[in-house]
Structures are given as C-alpha cells and as structure tokens.
C-alpha cells in the first residue's frame, strides 16, 4: 500500500491534462507545482535544519531574473532553457551561501529578521536597478522552452508535465538526501546544535549546505515561473510570496515530504484556482441578480484572510500540520517526550 499509493497518484496526475481540458485550470495546477518546488526548498532550511528563514521568495526572484537576463531581448542574450535550469539553480544556491554565511551565528527570531530583510532587499534592488532589470515593469519577452522542435509557448500543458517531472526528480533526490550523512547532520542540528558539534558534525558546512540547496530549489522554480509567464516583475516576489511558501509548510507539516506537498497543493490551489474561480462565480451571480457589490467583488484580495483562518485553525487543532513527521508530532505533544535534559551550571 505504501508503495502503491504514490504510484497511483503519479499516474492519476499524468492523466489530469487529458481529463481537464480547461487551459486556465491546467495553468493553475502548473503554478501549484511551482509552489511545491518552493516548499521543497524552504523545507530543507526550516523543516530539516530548523533554521527559521523568512524572505525565501528572494531566491525565487534570483532564479527567475537570472533566466530573464540570459534568455530575453533585455540584453540580447538567448541561452537555451534546459541548461539554464541548472545555471539558475547554481546562482540561487550561491546567493543562499551569501545569505547563509553572515547569519550562521543567528538563530530563531534573529535569523528570521535578517532573512526577512534579505527578502525585502532583493525585490527593492530589482525595482530600482531599472537600467538592467526594467524596474517595476520587469522584463518581458522571455524565451520559452523548446523540446525536440516543439515550442512550449503559452500552452500550460507542457509546463504542467515539466513541473510534474521536476517534482518527481526532486522527491527522489530529497528522499535520498534525508537519509544521507548531510541529512542526518541537518536533523542533529535541528535537535541540538551543540550536541551535533560534539558528534563531529561541521555545523557551519551543514547549515550553509542547507541554505544553498534550499535556495537552489527556489532557483529552479524561478526559471520555470519566468519561462511559463514569459515575463518577470519585482511584484511577483514580495513578502506575500514568502509567507505563502511558509504557510504551505506549516499547514502540511514541516520536515515531512508528503505533508509539504499536501500543504503546497492546498495553498496553491486555493491561490491559483479556487479564489479566482469563486470570484468569477460571485461576480456572475452579482451581474445576473443586479447586485453591484457582488458584481465587483474580488475574492483574491481576501486570500490572506483565508490563509489566516486556515493557519489559525491548523495551529489550534493540529499544530504539527496535516501530515507531520513523527519527530515533529512528538515535539508538539509533550507527553511523548517528557524527559527533557536537566540544565544546570558546572
């Protein structure tokens, strides 16, 4: 059962574009896939290593703009999409190191504040370096991928399959990583950093690796995002986006991949499909019944209200997330781990 269920889900997902012919639906599913990738990245930093990083959307932006610079009329450079996935991942990973290195000594709220600052700086820089970045308008006309002579264009279906393929590869990678030496060192750091150092774990390298690898995932998500939309602008990478990614993690269950996917899918569908659809229905209803308030309503404006309600509800009734990891559950239900170590001065 444990091995069959994922296979069934994967096959079912592969058939979705054949059953659902609505392009805007497929587009929403693809964007949800992007959120899953972002959540994978943040999960390495927050879920595995226990470093609370806000402003994660900055790495998403760096990935997207790296591709936009190197595959658009902006500078007249048109590098091929496929190797650019790796290049943008590497560039975002490098920025992960740049942010990780000075923040190594910080933890908890302090780390959150510094990473939040980084998340604010990146969109600001993109907005104000308009000579290169196109300022608030961003960069348009970004190249779209081609595969064996087939151009993806604006058709969401090939992007959907591309996201699906990359998510599957990432899952395989993350599953192995989780049980590798570096995965165990992240887990040890999350549990007790001092004890981890006593085990001979180089905590500096391990934390930098977490930042860098997490950022690389965001870089990949950035390339796909820029290619699918064929345009990037700073407003797509603001604090709201960072909050959305973190909300997906908290909702689904940090540190546990099925949970992370579940959270990202719920938040993604809510954001990209349900709220826009519901807005349409309400507006149509309003027009037909001649109720001006309903006809002009935009439910998308209330997405943070909806996130808020969902998150508060989850925190109240299931603080470990919908599908938590076993350790996380133990952490939040104290009776299971009562023997906390005694602290005294020596």
């Amino acid at each position: 059962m444990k091995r069959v269920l994922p296979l069934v889900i994967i096959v079912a997902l592969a058939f979705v574009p054949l059953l659902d012919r609505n392009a805007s639906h497929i587009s929403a599913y693809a964007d949800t896939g992007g959120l899953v990738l972002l959540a994978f990245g943040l999960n390495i930093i927050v879920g595995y290593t226990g470093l609370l990083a806000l402003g994660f959307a900055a790495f998403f932006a760096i990935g997207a703009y790296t591709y936009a610079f190197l595959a658009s009329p902006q500078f007249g450079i048109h590098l091929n999409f496929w190797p650019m996935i790796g290049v943008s991942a590497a560039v975002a990973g490098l920025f992960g190191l740049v942010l990780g290195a000075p923040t190594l000594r910080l933890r908890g709220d302090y780390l959150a504040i510094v990473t939040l600052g980084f998340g604010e700086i990146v969109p600001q820089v993109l907005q104000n370096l308009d000579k290169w970045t196109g300022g608030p308008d961003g960069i348009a006309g970004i190249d779209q991928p081609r595969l064996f002579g087939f151009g993806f264009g604006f058709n969401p279906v090939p992007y959907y399959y591309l996201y699906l393929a990359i998510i599957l590869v990432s899952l395989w990678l993350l599953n192995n990583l989780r049980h590798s030496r570096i995965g165990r060192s992240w887990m040890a750091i999350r549990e007790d950093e001092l004890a981890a150092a006593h085990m001979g774990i180089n905590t500096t390298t391990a934390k930098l690796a977490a930042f860098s690898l997490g950022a690389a995932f965001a870089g990949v998500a950035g390339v796909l995002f820029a290619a699918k939309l064929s345009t990037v602008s700073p407003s797509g990478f603001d604090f709201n986006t960072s909050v959305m990614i973190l909300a997906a993690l908290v909702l689904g269950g940090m540190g546990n991949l099925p949970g992370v996917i579940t959270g990202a899918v719920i938040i993604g569908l809510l954001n990209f499909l349900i709220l826009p659809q519901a807005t349409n229905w309400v507006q149509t209803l309003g027009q037909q019944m001649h109720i001006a308030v309903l006809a002009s309503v935009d439910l998308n404006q209330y997405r943070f209200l909806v996130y808020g309600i969902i998150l508060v509800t989850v925190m109240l009734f299931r603080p470990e997330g919908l599908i938590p990891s076993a350790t996380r559950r133990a952490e939040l239900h104290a009776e299971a781990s009562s023997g906390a170590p005694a602290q005294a001065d020596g």
Partner: protein
Amino acid sequence: MSAPILSLSGVEAYYGRIQALRGLSLDVGEGEIVALIGANGAGKTTTLRTISGLLAPARGSINLFGESIVGMRADQIVRKGIVQSPEGRRIFPRLTVLENLRLGAYARTDRAIAGDFDRVLSLFPRLGERLKQKGGTLSGGEQQMLAIGRALMAGPKVLLLDEPSLGLSPILVDTIFNVIADVNRSGVPILLIEQNARKALQVAARGYVLETGTIVKSGPAATLLADDDVRKAYLGED
C-alpha cells in the same frame, strides 16, 4: 605514568574580557581516569569547551599524542579522537536511541563501527532493549548512558565526561560511576568533570582541583581524598 595522551599546558581562555582559565595545565595518561573537581564557576566546563575546540585558548598548548590541536574546529577535534559527552546529557530527545547512537559515529568512516555498536550495547544492555524508543522517553540514568554510549560510538581516544551524575538520584549516581569504571576498563582514558568530588575521586586514578581557572592541587586520587583542604572544601567534612 607513560607519555600523556592528552596534555594541557599553561592554557588561558577568556569569555570576552573575563579570564576563565589562568594557566591551566593537566595530563591524561593511557588507560586512566582523571578527575577534575572544583566549585561552580571554577572553570571545569570551560576547560572541556577549550579542549573540544568550542572556545579558542588565548595562550597555552593542548596536545593529543604530542600533536597540537589548538585552532582546530570542533568537528576536526572529534575526528582526532577527543569526544565529549556534554553537560546535561544533550541527547537528541526526538530521535530514537538507535539514531542517537548512529549520530555518535557520524564522523567515522572506518569498519569498526559495528563492533563498537556491539560493545556499547554490551556495556549498556538497557539501551539494546530500547533501540526503537525516542531518546526523550528514557529515564535520566538511561539518558546519561545513552549520552556516554553515543560518545563511545565516536571511537574516542580520550573521553571527556562533563558532570555525568548531574540531576540523577543517588542510586543512579552509583550506577553511572560503575558504568564509567566499566568504560575505562574497556581501555578508554577518561577526563571526568564532577561536582560530586567524592565519587569522582573514588573512581579516578588521579585528580586535579580547579579554583578560579587554575589548578591548585593535584595528585593520586587517594591522596586528594585524604587531603585536609580537599575534605573541607569539596567533601563537606570538618
């Protein structure tokens, strides 16, 4: 005593401007238990932090088998064979006993890990019964055994124990000191830091008395146990 395995000489260490160690010197020889006793704030834990590379000494030398380890990172020092079981046990409470022990061997790549695992389980049969249990669900004494077992999994050339009897009931304190003697008999030299000076000196071959960052007395443990000053200051006798 043959050539020391671990040797500190004239070590000075600071927390900011505050000097915590003032020219501390001590040796740990082959196969012996050395007790380092002293009051709160005397610098016992600082000594261990300095040996483990968590605090850089301002002056002085720290040698393992005659080779300086000053300036090495904490993880490199563990790989060299100096392994600490930290104060307050610091086991990973939400990981299983087995995962805790495996993390102990994190820095190793040699083939003797399985053998050391068996050795730890034969020293601590209780851990073998509880491999699947979360570390945090163990009793205090079992957690201390796990902390020592985890340190042994690193294959130490010298084992540093920081307050192993801290927070344990008197019966468990006896158990833990028996365990320390067992570990030592299996060939591991131990630097033992304790507030329970009597127990520490009973199990140790030699002892050092630390006051305000410097060694004020040293000698065979039996001599220290009989020493008037030590009896008054650390053993609670008149």
